């Protein structure tokens, strides 16, 4: 962006927001912040602009930054689900790129505001995270960086195991089994000191905030892409800008042989819905669905063919295309998007005197990675302070992994 571009971008923003509202989008008040590359990659690595620091965020930052420096891939924007909604734009982008990004984040902002999964997310999470980060910094001062890091390492290792369905209703404390492993630890661990419990609780809060985004990745990216395409097409792009826009769209929607591109597939599904059911249906789906229902209801053979989707798997030492049938692909995607792609675990506690933490994996045909089980159990033990076990199924047999503070043992059940 050159200095004179800022004026053009401001004018475009004004036009874009007006046009988007006319088309039916209803987004939060927007704050567009132009930042240097480093800052955008920092925020991407941390997940939020105000989060505490952890080495894994640094790893993420480094990896994405390296890809950027090497020209492998790049981040164009970041948008935060909050009210007002913050969007971070790269100062290194061309003004045309940033105009497209503005259109794109308007789509996200509308989605955040109206999709039912986001109904209960904390819209002032930027501040909550800043507060948590400050507390964690104080803990570092009092107890040392290493001890704080140890607790964070442990809490982050099971961060995905929360129960987002408790949002908006009273948690049910009657049942003996909880999907909310982190919450279970926060409430029932006898090991944790107050400050440690606070850290675990903060990690849980943050995951509950991120959860709807994990559950609606395909929809949300597709929605934003759909609207930026619409909005950019409504603009009268001059010759060079039109070419640049076409190139940019092509690079964002580029397919990947080993992974489907949510921007591309999401966009095509939305376009298909519009073709089949009309414009109003779009807004209804954006409100009521998440990825699982979105894919199950609307992925059809036309879309599979247009996006060149296939199922592949391992045959010996090679990855091989197995299936191109829409029903098979749809079922696999639904399975993999269930619980945002993470294994479902339930936690309970064995009666005294053992006080053992029992984690059971709700096995539905997908096996867990044993090496990771063996590395993660000690982390859970760090938080629980007593023996921990995990039940799952391997090769058709029920097995239990138990960690007692010294070694992991595996036995058939």
């Amino acid at each position, binding site marked *: 962006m050159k200095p004179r571009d800022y004026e053009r971008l401001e004018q475009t923003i004004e036009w874009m927001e007006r046009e988007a509202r006319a088309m039916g989008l209803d987004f939060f008040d927007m704050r567009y912040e132009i*930042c240097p590359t480093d800052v955008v990659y920092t925020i991407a690595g941390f997940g939020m602009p105000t989060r505490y620091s952890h080495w894994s965020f640094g790893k993420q930052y480094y990896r994405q930054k390296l890809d950027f420096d090497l020209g492998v891939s790049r981040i164009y924007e970041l948008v935060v689900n909050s009210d007002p909604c913050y969007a971070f734009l790269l100062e290194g982008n061309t003004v045309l790129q940033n105009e497209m990004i503005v259109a794109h984040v308007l789509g996200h902002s509308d989605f955040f505001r109206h999709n039912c999964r986001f109904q209960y997310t904390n819209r002032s999470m930027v501040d909550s995270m800043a507060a948590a980060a400050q507390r964690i910094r104080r803990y570092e001062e009092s107890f040392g960086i290493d001890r704080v890091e140890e607790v964070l390492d442990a809490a982050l290792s099971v961060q995905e195991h929360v129960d987002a369905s408790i949002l908006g209703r009273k948690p049910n404390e009657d049942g003996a089994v909880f999907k909310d492993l982190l919450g279970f630890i926060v409430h029932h661990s006898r090991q944790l000191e107050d400050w440690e419990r606070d850290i675990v609780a903060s990690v849980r809060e943050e995951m509950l905030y991120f959860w709807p985004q994990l559950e609606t990745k395909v929809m949300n990216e597709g929605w934003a892409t759909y609207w930026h395409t619409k909005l950019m097409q409504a603009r009268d792009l001059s010759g060079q800008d039109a070419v640049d826009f076409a190139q940019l769209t092509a690079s964002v929607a580029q397919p990947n042989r080993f992974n489907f591109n949510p921007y591309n597939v999401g966009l095509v599904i939305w376009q298909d819905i519009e073709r089949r059911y009309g414009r109003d249906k779009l807004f209804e789906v954006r409100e009521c669905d998440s990825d699982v229902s979105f894919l199950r209801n609307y992925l059809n053979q036309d879309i599979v063919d247009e996006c060149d989707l*296939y199922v592949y798997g391992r045959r010996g030492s090679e990855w091989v295309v197995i299936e191109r049938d829409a029903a098979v*692909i749809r079922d696999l995607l639904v399975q*993999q998007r269930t619980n945002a792609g993470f294994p479902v675990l339930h936690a309970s506690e064995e009666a005294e005197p053992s006080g053992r933490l029992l984690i059971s994996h709700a096995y539905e045909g997908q096996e867990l990675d044993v090496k990771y089980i063996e590395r993660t159990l000690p982390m859970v033990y760090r938080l629980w302070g007593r023996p921990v076990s995990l039940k799952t199924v391997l090769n058709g047999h029920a097995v239990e992994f138990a960690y007692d503070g010294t070694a992991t043992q595996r036995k058939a059940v």
Partner: protein
Amino acid sequence: MGFLIQDDWSLDRRGQRAQARHREKVKQSLRDNLADIISQEDLILSNGQRTIRVPVQQLDEPHFRYDYSRQQHVGQGPGNKGQTIGRAAPGTGVTGTTAGEDPGQQVLEAQVTLDEVEEALFADLRLPHLKDKPQPKPVVADAIDFTDIRSKGIRANIDRKRTFMEALRRSQSAHKPFQITEDDLRFKTWQDTVIPDVGAVVFAMMDISGSMGMAEKYTARTFFFWMEKFLEKQYAHVDMRYIVHHTEAYETSKDAFYRTRESGGTRCSTAFDTAKAVIQASYPPDLWNIYLVYVGDGDNMWSDNETTGALVQELSPLASLIAYLEVNPYNRITTLSRTIASLNVPQVRWTTAADHRDVLKALRLFFHPNQEEVHRA
């Protein structure tokens, strides 16, 4: 209407700081896995290639996750049923060569430079009992000290601050607008630092007899490779002499030392004998710190053990260290090692290495800086 904001982020270093912390963890993991890392063959053969990939599994954050290689996945692109789209790495999991291309790429490797390995490895290695002995020739150290400022010099060494000050002083006193002229230029000049170096000579002695199999020779070479690296890194200059032996011993060049393969019986004493001759000819002990480092498999001719013991005893007053490493996969106690151990000479340090993973242990024992060390690990 939304706002367009532009803040000053120039002081934001959170990304870099967290990255630095990650880097520290990589280094820690490097230190923890040194024994494995330094025995990697490609590292030793890497010839000047300064970056290596080492496995750092700890840095892949633990999670309960699905076994990727046993799952089916969805991809995009052309190709019919049955068509191969990529190769999976042997074993479990998938590790790829091209970033972001391969499925489920688990990044279990970190790139580290050879320098970092060396730094972690050599941090606490020293030549033990190194004494200040008068050296015949002073050695010019690599260090360059910038000691003076002159008005003539090479452009690369312009002292910007002083040049600026000079220009400022001159233009101010002449009441002229600020401008830097040729006369204002100031250059840093340096002097070579001449420091008398402590003379040290290391004898690398290796058994190349028939009983040393491929694995033993590999361990021996790995040991000497890192020993030399450490000497290069920690000391400006150390004389190296190379001796190999079977039933006879002879001095070789460095190249030949690492390459020679011979067969035949073993007379260990010949190596020490040759070292003794070289010492007498070129290294008066009152001027030199002398280090004798022997690696063999202990499979010595029985009649030679006593001779070897006597020679080691005889050489010990002259030497700062006599190190004996026995490469011995079965950890048996050979008569030679028993002879060496029974000498009870403070200069002697000895240990056994079952395989190349023990190289680190041996290096740390032999080149432990403290005076009051144990004789065997």
